[in-house]
């Protein structure tokens, strides 16, 4: 079982499932608008008249209306999409890397290394991630974006390491691993050249589902004022800012909330479809 054609087979497998197709199309649209949208939208940072166009309803030159500071809501939602997706993507890259490394080492070396690492992971998993984040973020007045990404990444790998460890324990007994060992391959070579590529499938599913978790967490933290700092737009921050206007100008908080829900739903459906495609490929 090699890596040849894995991405192609997976995309085809996802596309075969109706929910996977919907997820791919939705996510593709969101990413495309986030990447290409801003030049075509009013720049919220350059508002000519701060109060003159406050809280305008949708339509009338502003597709999704304006917020209490006269900023175009659509521009802010798209700006929030850029930040949210970038933060979630980078944070997942960090957490998947650490999780895969720890899982490979614990599963392959076994013994005391495994016991110590897994007891630590047990303990870390018992503390809800939000509480870890609250403890780490409470010190910052204005957290830099890079630090936020790192903190989100380094608190998300515990489950991934367990998953990879389980895969490694299963694969360790297979002929291609014992064969490589018999041919004199070193531990690092067996771990990274032979075991790692075979954990990629489950890792990809975990990473995809993890993106949804991070988007929700980041929105919640920004809502509490601990995540992305204004004036940089964030979906959670927009909802917090518009809290008082929920009834008088509902569009200012309804749209960012819908953006979060739609993105997370699409990401989770994609994760499920990926897992389905992997199952099919194995059977």
């Amino acid at each position, binding site marked *: 079982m090699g890596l040849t054609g894995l991405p192609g087979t997976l995309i085809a497998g996802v596309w075969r499932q109706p929910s996977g197709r919907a997820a791919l199309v939705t996510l593709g649209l969101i990413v495309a608008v986030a990447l290409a949208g801003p030049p075509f939208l009013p720049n919220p940072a350059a508002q000519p008249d701060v109060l003159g166009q406050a809280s305008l309803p949708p339509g009338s030159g502003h597709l999704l209306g304006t917020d209490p500071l006269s900023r175009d809501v659509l521009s802010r939602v798209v700006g929030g999409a850029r930040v949210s997706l970038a933060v979630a993507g980078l944070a997942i890259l960090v957490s998947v890397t650490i999780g895969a490394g720890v899982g490979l080492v614990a599963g392959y070396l076994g013994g005391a290394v495994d016991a110590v690492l897994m007891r630590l992971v*047990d303990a*870390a998993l018992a503390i809800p*991630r939000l*509480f*870890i984040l609250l*403890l780490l973020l409470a010190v910052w007045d204005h957290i830099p974006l890079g630090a936020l990404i790192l903190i989100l990444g380094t608190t998300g790998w515990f489950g991934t390491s367990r998953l990879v460890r389980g895969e490694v324990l299963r694969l360790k007994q297979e002929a291609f691993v014992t064969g490589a060992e018999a041919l004199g391959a070193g531990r690092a070579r067996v771990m990274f050249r032979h075991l790692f590529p075979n954990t990629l499938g489950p890792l990809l599913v975990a990473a995809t589902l993890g993106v949804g978790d991070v988007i929700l967490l980041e929105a919640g933290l920004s809502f509490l004022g601990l995540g992305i700092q204004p004036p940089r737009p964030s979906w959670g921050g927009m909802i917090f800012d518009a809290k008082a206007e929920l*009834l008088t100008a509902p569009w200012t*908080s309804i749209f960012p909330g819908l953006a979060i829900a739609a993105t997370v739903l699409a990401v989770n459906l994609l994760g499920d479809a990926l897992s389905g495609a992997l199952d099919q490929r194995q059977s």
Partner: protein
Amino acid sequence: MTRWLLLRCLQAAVTLLLVAILLFCLMRLAPGDPLSRVSGEQQLTPGALAHLREQYGLDQPIARQLAIWLAGVVRGDLGASIEYGRPVTSLIAERLRASLLLGGTALLINFTLGLWLGAVQAVRRGTPVDRWLTAASLAGYATPSFWLGLVLAALVAVRWRLLPAAGMQNPLLASDAGPWVRGLDIADHLALPAATLVIVSIASTMRYQRRAMLEVLPLPYIVAARAKGLAESVVVRRHAWRNALFPVLSLAGLWLPILATGSVFVESVFAWPGLGSLAAGAVGTRDYPLLMGTALLVSSLIVLGGLLTDVAYGVLDPRIRWA
């Protein structure tokens, strides 16, 4: 059996000890110490700051501080809150009941409704009912709880005036109101936060139940029950449901963290006087002892929940004990 039980308890105790150490390390990872943040905002004199450092034991070496924290945890002493100036344990004790009421209600509804809907989905798999229930529950799972809470409060409480928007009791309630009136009042306040928590958390229960039922339904004993001429509803309710219930037990380990996290946001939005809003408030005031205390309590509940499910599993299914 006794040996297995002892080992499992020992493992839980080790996990709890590691949780306490991890929480301490997380707090000390922060640059400076907890008081340097507070002093910057309140402009304490250096003398007062040194006095406070001494009072909170922050002038001791790190290893010593860890030992003091662990000894305190074992004795049930979590230190004093910086903001309130009172023992963390008594603050937590005051708030625990409200959180257990909200979390317990949400869990109960999640469990009963989720098991029922999941079973309905399994029996009618592949039909539009199955697909729409999956879509609806996944949409709920993807919705941020704080936003859903705000929207529900704005519509149901503020616009339609059907239910109260915040708090746990009506402060204007007559002091001689009977227990029925008081209970109903609390139930009114409970409805919206509990509904929010259920909507964002029910997807996993439904999913597991659906899968468990689908595994049980083709088994020979179900076929035999049908062959006996039992009505389909009896087969599902008396035979399939019971055995499918089993794997769902393990979900407790999954819900507790979701509920703990959800409660931070939901309690904050609805001003519910529980642990979640206490923790959220502690972040704002950088009240580290309080934050660590609530985190430790929530984590202990999660470890304990995991232990109880494992024990229940072991008692009900002997195969687990030998695995």
